[in-house]
Structure formats: C-alpha cells, structure tokens
C-alpha cells in the first residue's frame, strides 16, 4: 500500500472503495509486522480501533460521515485517553490508565476517527530525539539508525511509515516541527490557545500547544478543523471563531511577502541546509511571493529563555508525579519522604530529572529575578521582534533544524548540544505564534524541512502557503525507501 493520506482515505471511504474496518485491519497488521524496528507505538488499541472502525462504517451507511470518519489516526501518548494507558513515555506513568479524555481526543472520537493507539515520545515531552522514552527510542523510517526526532517522534515515525494517516502531537519548543522535518512530513503547531490543552499532560504550560503531523497541509487542515476551538475547561484557551482551514488552501499567494530572518542563516546552519532552504524559498518566488530579509535581533536569547521558562514550569508541573494517587509507586516505602524520593527517582528518567532540578534552581530563593524574570523579559523582546516583523511581512520562513536527522546516541550524552538543536523552533513557542514544517528537500537521502511562521491565529494562511508549495512540488510525496 502506498503512503496514505487522510484526503485519499476519506475519498476511498466515501466512494466505497474500501471500508474503515478493512483499512484498520490492514494497518494493524502492518504495525505488527513493521513497528518493531521503528518503535513508534507504545500501546496499540486493536479491539477499540476495530470497534471504532465498525461504528464509523455504520455512521457512513447512514449518511452521517464527515471528513475524519473512519480515518485511521493515533494520539501522542501525552494525550489522556480514558480507559487506555497514557504513559508519556515514562516509567512513572507506565501503569497510568487515564480516567478521562483529553478534549482533542473527545473531538476526534466525535468526528468518528479511528485511533489505532498511543504514540511513543520523549519522556514527558522533554527532548528532541525521542531517545529518552522509557519504551525505547523511536527510529526514523528513513534510516532506522537515526532518530525520528522529538519529542513527537512516534507521531512522526508512524505517519512516515504509513501506519496511520495522521497523528496528534504536541509542541513546546519544536516537538512537532522537528520530527516532522526529520521524517519528511508536514507538521503544524497552531497558535497558543487555538487548541485546548485539557487532558494533554503539561510539560511547560505557557509553551505547550497541541498540533498534528500529517503528510500534507491538506490533511493537517482537516485535522485542525476537528481539534481547534475554545474549551471552557482551559483558561488559556482562546474564545475565537475557528475558520474552515480547508476552505482557503487554494487561495492565490501571488504578492505574498515572505520574510527571511537573517539571524537564522548563521553559523548554526550547514551549507547544504542553507542551500536546501534557499531553493525552497525560490519555489515561493516562482509562485509570485515577494521575499524580504528581516531581522529578529533577539534570536540568540531564545534558547536560554526557553530552557529556563520550560524548566521552571516543568519542575512545578512534575510535582504531582509523587506515587500517591496514580502512577508508579516504589516498593515498601518506609516513610512519606521515602515514598516521594524513591517513587520519583525510580519513576522519572534522567532528562526529566535534570530539567526539574534546573527549574527548581532557577526559581529558588535569590534567583527568581536573575533567571526566571529575566527569561520572561527576554521572552517579551522575542515576541516584539516577531510583532515588528509581521508589520512588514505576511509569513516568515526559514530552517527548522540545523541538521537532518542525527544518528541515535549522537547527542544523548550532551544535553546542551541537544538543546541547541532547537535554535530555530523555540522562539515560536515563546511568542505563541503558529508554525509549520513542510518537507522541502533532501540531503544525503534524508528529509529537510522548511519552517513557515504565521501571525497570531493565522493558521489558515499558513496552511494555504504550505499547500501551494505542495501543489507546485512533490517533496511531500516522497516516502522512505522500502515503504
């Protein structure tokens, strides 16, 4: 079976070419046979998926199907799924059967989508390679010795390996865009507040946002249509009308101004990467877009600011993982202190513990002003840079990552090097802006991603701009060899 897209499957289901049950069975089989070397799934919910597929087929026979009905997707394992294991890639939650659904999960269920299971990820979404998962690293279907990216590595790999048509994911500092880039896919992180965070296990509350990884912008629009919207259970959710993201995909982009930040084309970027991105930009010129150099002068503050803020917020968010009401509890604790220390130390992985420690330090007495407050001030400067830029341009474009997918274990010993890989993506989370990654080239047979950054709540334009690229080129059609 060729690479599957939501649009294609939806069409096949609508025209009766196949049933949801048939597709689901085939994919479940494929996962059984091929996921061992990819390791994209933590939990496969076979029975549930078939039941959902059956129900979807029934809905369709009654004429009540919509675009996502019967379409096979899966959720990143930090989305709470009632009655199903929700592990966040951690030993701490290796026994956590979530007692409620994330709002996004509810929405997809209501739309009749079929979820095949829960996808592997860096532990608690902290990482850029999905190597820190308690359930083992996720391999890149393009080269299984390389990482699929993180933290939504499982989401990207499962889509790239054609196990599912689309996946939900989350992005705190690039966790959707980077794996999408490494796996040759389309990823979108919407504006902060566009999608409800209710039921998505928090890493850094002011940076986390739910999004998707798909093959195409067209598919991403279909999924975003389902999952977006105000949720009264989420105080940070925006009360804003959700446009039909599919409706504007084919808008003409002639005259569109695309800003290229000069700071992004610096020493971090290899010559080949610069080349690949430059070529992608040329495509846009061919489509009638105007290219303009812009400056985001405080770019170099993004990584330290992001790291501090995310560490501080995560250190508090992780405190509830204490072995008392759910999750892993150590054996035979001798007293309360022992319960806490051993449950947490045994249940949490190294990267998570590092970030908790850093976060606690940054917030500790005497350091608040020097670290946390300073990071939030830097954050404002970064946001202001973008606000100014969007006065001059409609979209900002640039690289997603400094390199293509790196080899497994290459960076695990060097957390700083790992962090620096996020240099192009974290600024967006700090500012809360929407961003996409689309496949725009290859270097040594490994995918290269182009990052597109939009103004607040301008996902429709972002998807339109991405879609136009995908109409004019065929990078999005490329699959890993052998698939």
């Amino acid at each position, binding site marked *: 079976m060729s690479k599957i897209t939501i649009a294609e499957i939806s069409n096949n289901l609508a025209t009766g070419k196949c049933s949801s049950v048939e597709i689901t069975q085939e994919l479940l089989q494929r996962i059984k046979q091929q996921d061992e070397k990819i390791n994209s799934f933590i939990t496969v919910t076979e029975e549930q998926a078939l039941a959902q597929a059956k129900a979807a087929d029934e809905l369709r026979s009654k004429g009540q199907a919509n675009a996502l009905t019967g379409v096979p997707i899966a959720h990143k394992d930090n989305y709470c799924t009632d009655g199903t294991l*929700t592990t966040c890639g951690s030993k701490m939650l290796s026994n*956590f059967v979530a007692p409620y659904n994330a709002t996004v999960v509810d929405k997809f269920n209501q739309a009749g989508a079929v979820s095949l299971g829960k996808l592997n990820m860096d532990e608690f979404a902290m990482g850029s390679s999905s190597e820190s998962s308690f359930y083992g690293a996720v391999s890149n279907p393009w080269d299984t010795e390389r990482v699929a990216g993180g933290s939504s590595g499982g989401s990207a790999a499962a889509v790239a390996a054609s196990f599912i048509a689309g996946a939900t994911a989350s992005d705190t500092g690039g966790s959707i865009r980077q794996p999408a880039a490494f796996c040759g896919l389309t990823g979108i992180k919407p504006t902060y507040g566009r999608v409800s*965070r209710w039921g998505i296990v928090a890493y850094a509350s002011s940076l986390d946002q739910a999004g998707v990884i798909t093959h195409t912008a067209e598919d991403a629009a279909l999924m975003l249509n389902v999952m977006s919207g105000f949720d009264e*259970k989420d*105080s940070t959710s925006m009360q804003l009308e959700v446009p039909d993201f599919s409706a504007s995909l084919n808008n003409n982009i002639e005259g569109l101004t695309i800003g290229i930040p000069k700071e992004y084309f610096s020493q971090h970027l290899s010559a080949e990467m610069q080349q690949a991105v430059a070529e992608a930009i040329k495509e846009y010129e061919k489509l009638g877009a105007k290219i303009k150099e812009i400056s985001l002068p405080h770019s170099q503050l993004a990584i330290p600011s992001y790291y501090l803020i995310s560490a501080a917020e995560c250190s508090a968010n*992780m*405190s509830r993982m204490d072995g008392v*009401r759910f999750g892993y509890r150590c054996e035979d604790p001798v007293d309360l202190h022992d319960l806490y220390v051993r449950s947490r130390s045994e249940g949490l992985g190294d990267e998570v513990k590092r970030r908790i420690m850093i976060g606690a330090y940054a917030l500790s007495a005497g350091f608040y002003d020097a670290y946390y407050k300073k990071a939030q001030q830097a954050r404002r400067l970064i946001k202001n840079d973008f606000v100014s830029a969007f006065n001059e341009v409609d979209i900002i474009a640039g690289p997603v990552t400094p390199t293509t997918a790196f080899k497994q274990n290459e960076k695990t010993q060097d957390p700083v090097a790992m962090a620096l890989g996020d240099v192009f993506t974290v600024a967006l989370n700090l500012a809360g802006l929407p961003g996409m990654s689309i496949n725009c080239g290859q270097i040594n047979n490994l995918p290269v991603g182009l990052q597109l950054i939009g103004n607040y709540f301008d996902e429709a334009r972002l998807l339109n701009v991405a879609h136009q690229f995908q109409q004019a080129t065929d990078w999005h059609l490329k699959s890993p060899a052998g698939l």
Partner: protein
Amino acid sequence: MQWEVVIGLEIHVQLATKTKIFSASSTAYGAEANTQADVVDLGMPGVLPVFNEEALRMAVKFGLAIDADIHKVSVFDRKNYFYPDSPKGYQTTQLYYPTVGMGHIEIELDDGSTKRINVTRAHLEEDAGKSVHEGFGGSSGIDLNRAGTPLIEIVSEPELRSAKEAAAYFRKMHSIVTYLGICDGDLSQGSMRCDCNVSLRPKGQKEFGTRAEIKNVNSFRNVERAIDAEIERQMDILEDGGKIVQETRLYDADKNETRSMRSKEAENDYRYFPCPDLLPVVIDDAYIETVRQTLPELPDAKRQRYISEHGLSAVDAGVLSANRELAAYFETVAESINDYKLAANWVQGDVSAALNRLELSIEQLTVSAEQLGYILKLIKDSTLNNGGAKEVFNALLDGKGDGSVDCIDGLIDQLGLKQVSDTGAIETIVDEVLANNAKLVESYLATPEDKRAKAIGPFIGQVRKAAKGVNPQVVMEVLQKKLSEL
C-alpha cells in the same frame, strides 16, 4: 524587664461558594472521603484550573467591608511544597499581587474602648485536603474533598498587643465574614482557622523579637489560651537569657501549651512563580461598584446605630450586632413593637438562654421573630404579664403551636395566661381574698402605717393564687385602695 507582646494573625476563611476555587466540584461539608474530588482536585496529569467567579466576588466584598484597596489586577502564584494533602505538589495562592490590599477593622476592648487594627492584605488561595492519621494502621489516609475549597487568607499587621486583643480581632473577623455571607463561620467544621504569630520585645525596642507561629487554632477561646501559653513560654526562655527559635508550633488544648511541629519547615523555599495555567485577574471600577451595592449594614455600623438611635448600651449593642442572624432576629422583634430595649432584654435574656441550653442557632429556634414580637406586644398592652409571657415563650420552645403568630392567642387561652387587668374583675378577686383571709387583714391593720408597704406582699400572693394572670399594677392599686378603706 518589661516585655511587649507583638501579635499578628493570619486567618484562613473558607468561602461559602458552591464549588471549589478552580474546579466545579461541590464544597458541601461532610461528604464521604474523596466523593467530592474530581480530576482537577486530584491533580491528575493534564488537568487545568478555571477560576470561580463567586470566589472573586466574595473576596472583593470582603475587601470593601474592611475599607481596603481592591487591586484591579491580581495574579495567582504557585507555592511549591510536597505534602500528601496538596495533590499537585504546589498550592495555588496569591503572593505578589493579592486581590485585596491594605484595610482595617475596629476591635472593642474590655474597657469599652475601640482600637483600629490594620489588615495588610487578604488573598485568595486553595485549601488543602485532610489527612487522617488514625485508623489506617501504619498509614495515613488522605481525603481530598476539601482540596481546592476557596480560601481568603487575611493577614493582620503585627499590631495586636495581647491575647485578648487577638481573640477580639478573630471574633470581629468572624462577625464580618458571616455578616457578608461569604463564610458560614462554623469553627467546628474548620470554616475559619487562625495562625498566630507571637513574639516579645523589650518595651521601647523598635525591632521585633523572633516570632513563633502557632498554626491552625480553631476557636476564639483557644486563640486567647494558645497565645497566653506561648507568651508564657517565650517569657520563660527570654528571662532565662535564652533565644526564641523561629518555628511553627501547634497548640495542645488539653495540656494548654504549644509544641514544636516536626520540622516540615526545614525547607521553606517555596519557589513562588506566577501560575502559567491561569491568567491575571482583571476587574474594573464598574465591577467593584456592583459588589459594593451588595454590602449589608456591617456589625460596627449596626452596633453604632443600636447605641445612638435606639439607646442600647455598648455591651448590649455589641452582643446583638455580632451575629448577623441574631441581629436580624432582634431587629424584626424590635421593629414590630417599636421598642428596642424590651426586645434587647428578651433576645439577650430568654432567647439567648434558650439557644445555649438547647444548643441551637438562631435559625433553628422554634420561636420565630414574629412570634416573639407578638408576645412582647401583648406584654406592652398588658394582655400578658412577664411571667405569662415567659410561659408562652417556653411553650413555643417546647413545640406547642403551629409556628404561626395566630396560634399564640389560642395558646394563651389554653394556658389560662390572659392577664386580667379589668379593675372590676380584680376588685372582685381582691374582695374575695380579703374576705377569706381575716387573719391577714387583722395583722395588716395592726402593722404601723410606715411598714404597711411590705405587709401587702402576702395579699398579692393570695390574689395570684386565686387568679394566675393578673396585672400586678392594677392588683396593687386595688389592694391599696381596698385596704385603705378598711
């Protein structure tokens, strides 16, 4: 060495909202363990808080009642610490930008004077759950029903100078919050808890001494006793030349002493930072004004009005205005007979005695304000005398009658309490008494004139025996007239 006591109180008030501060769980008291703890209260992964509008309104109402600055922008912070009754591993509170700023209240001292005590701030926060340490073998049981209940923490300036002042301050706060209807004031249920910060310093010294904090004192009486015990403890140490350790202590009511808490406070680096799941709470003047419109007459104003407009004594006015329901009851009675003094006597006397004896609150009393008002009216128009009125009152307490005002007349007839005031009727009774008591008459007439006033007593007794409800003034008049005619 002359020591000055310096006390500051931090009072935690549970707001009487229907739901918790950040979740839609019920706050009803007494539910079975963990039946009012939803995913948010349990601190499950992935949950988020949404702020209760009623908690905000009540906090603002409180601020207005104590004449405080209302902060138009307030921010929730996370206070990070580990304890099983705090499921998220942090408490959501307001450190840097509380909703209520500097205000003040007046307390009445024993000598009748008043003293202003400034309130530094009052902020919103969530309550923790409860731990039960007995009954689970070697374990403690955690109940999170209470976790997430909205609190305001009211912080006083360290201006209290004695245990009595502290108790008066606690009482006044209790009065204010129950008046406002923002707290049920039930100390036995933990609706209000008090942390007392106590230190001593040599009289005249500007710097404060080291303070100890006595946590969770839960009654007016215990506030006074705990502070006195702590003052004594600190005095002993200081007079011996020792130093006070800054620490948290608990009051043991049985032993009447404070003891140090196991150092839970060894780490008090709470690493406060603004909660990123919540946004700044912003209110405007229009909102504050709508809340101000809902302020009732507050205890101090009421007390003043009782004194200046209705002539009650300061003490009586104080007692009657302290509790809103009692004040409402009292005012209904007083207004219905247009006699605040008579009403005051009865409410402070028979009514309060009944409440104490039967352990009832005023709302539970089976004699309504309307009923009592009617009874007092009957005293005023001489239908009943005092004794008769008390009998009717007690009958109603016992459950007689149907709760209405109309049934009282029937009750009076039933009990034969109607006071006879008719001169003619009384004359008949008196005549009979005089006729039947020749010996008494003789003895009376033998008494020297200047001692006759006392000698009338036995006749009154006989008249009373003959007919229960007789108007004493008329009896006296008739007796004196008839006896003088003898």
